[in-house]
């Protein structure tokens, strides 16, 4: 057997992949497939759940809210992440290392911890409101938590490190000497940036935007804790459909819609950039 395996290196390599592939198929893809089949079998076979979505204004509103919040947060996060990535790529190696660490640390801090920190800051009797009242800038506390603003802030905070790392990964491949050349030919710094660097970084902007938008529409913890039940996003709504109303048909149909949106966007971005690289750099 050893001999035949040696003669067929492909087969031998397949054996190496086997444990991972089995783990993934059994514990990941079987459940995922179950969601899809449930959406067309519960409560009875057919596309009723999807047809129902077309008239379900409640679910549609939640889909729209989810898309709106994710899009707004994505635009802000990509803007902020771009600033950081640009400062890293144009800075000294020392600055790059320090900034890299400052991005990685919040990225790996538990999302629950980060959301909790925002609750501390934003709640009615929280640090921001107390500070503003002490400084006599406001008389009554602002309602920042349990609103769309709160969800947006928490979401942006979660997205910026991912945006910065993805953008940085792409910007690293841009030849910095092109800027020098443009400057040498008489372009001002703004002009050189706008006509040389910005266009070259567009694929990175597109990849980062799509990647974090895809993540954003599936967020569960941030909207659930910072939205306080008032600002519902899709993932939390799907959870509620299952845990409170036990509506498996609608829940799994919405989950399938969520995956479909994600896959379509991913396909779109794969036309623009090498996805594996974008993931490898985060």
């Amino acid at each position, binding site marked *: 057997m050893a001999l035949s395996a040696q003669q067929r290196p492909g087969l031998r390599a397949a054996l190496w992949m086997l444990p991972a592939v089995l783990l993934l198929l059994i514990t990941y893809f079987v459940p995922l497939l179950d969601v899809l089949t449930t959406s067309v079998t519960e409560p009875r076979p057919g596309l009723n759940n999807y047809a129902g979505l077309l008239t379900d204004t409640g679910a549609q509103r939640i889909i729209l809210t989810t898309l709106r919040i994710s899009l707004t947060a994505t635009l802000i996060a990509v803007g902020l992440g771009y600033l950081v990535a640009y400062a890293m790529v144009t800075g000294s190696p020392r600055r790059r290392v320090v900034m890299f660490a400052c991005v990685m640390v919040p990225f790996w801090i538990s999302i629950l*911890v980060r959301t909790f*920190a925002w609750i501390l800051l934003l709640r009615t009797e929280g640090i921001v409101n107390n500070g503003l009242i002490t400084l006599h800038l406001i008389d009554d506390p602002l309602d920042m938590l349990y609103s769309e603003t709160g969800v947006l802030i928490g979401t942006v905070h979660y997205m910026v490190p991912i945006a910065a790392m993805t953008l940085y990964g792409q910007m690293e491949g841009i030849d910095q000497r092109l800027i020098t050349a443009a400057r040498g030919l008489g372009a001002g710094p703004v002009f050189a940036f706008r006509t040389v660097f910005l266009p070259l970084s567009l694929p990175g902007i597109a990849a980062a935007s799509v990647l974090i938008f895809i993540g954003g529409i599936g967020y569960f913890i941030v909207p659930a804790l910072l939205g306080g039940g008032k600002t519902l996003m899709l993932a939390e709504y799907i959870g509620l459909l299952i845990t409170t109303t036990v509506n498996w048909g609608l829940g799994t149909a919405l989950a399938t819609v969520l*995956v479909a949106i994600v896959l379509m966007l991913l396909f779109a971005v794969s036309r623009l950039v090498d996805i594996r690289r974008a993931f490898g750099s985060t």
Partner: protein
Amino acid sequence: MVVAPKRRVLPVLAWVVLLFLLLPCILVVPVSLTDTDYLAMPEQGLSLRWWHTLFASPEWMVALGQSLGIGLAATAIAVSAGTLCAIGCWRARNRWSALVRALILVPMIVPTVVYALGLFRVYAKVGLLDSFTGVILAHAALALPYPVLTVGAALTNFDPRLEQAARNLGASGWQVLRLVTLPNLKAGILSGAIFAFVVSWDELVVVLFIAGRRVHTLPRQIWSGIRENLDPTIAAVATLLIAVTLLALIPVLRGSRTAPKEA
């Protein structure tokens, strides 16, 4: 978006963004040392009272222990399967290995809530709901992409001729793996293990769906703490978690500084 790439202004703005990322996390530390009865900055002085409450609380300690155990078990599975898979993909380099690599990234892309729904249904059928085995397997699947990516990256810097040389010198397949390949991939395996552990340690959504009375991980305990009684104990836990993250990140950050960047 028009950004003036001035040498001075831009880095300052970038630091402001980084401050926005770091400050909320840092603020958790003084709040955990508050001398008040509620969540607030310390008023009269610092107090370790809430840290005492944390370490004296059986619920928090059980949650900590469970998360540690589940995290280590899931990491062991994900790292062994992931490392073998990365080596297999690297040796095969064919259409199938490209497909496997793409499939392994899927758990990073599909929203966890979707997976949690399916997992609940499947586990209900096979009787794995609220079991440690069930949570460990699910976390191993979610963590699998990370060791595959980090070991895969380490393999791009590994010369396949080293393996051939070892074979020519009479090493068996197992000896090649143990004495040549794996030692050369140490850094990739270590960072893969750290990432995998953090994924499990931090995972909430799947646990919320499949856990009942028995499984009570740290994220679940924090989640119910935030929703039910928001007290400074949570700030102490949060500080503890930040410290753990920092410790775990030191080798990763050191590795990324020295490791040659892919072009």
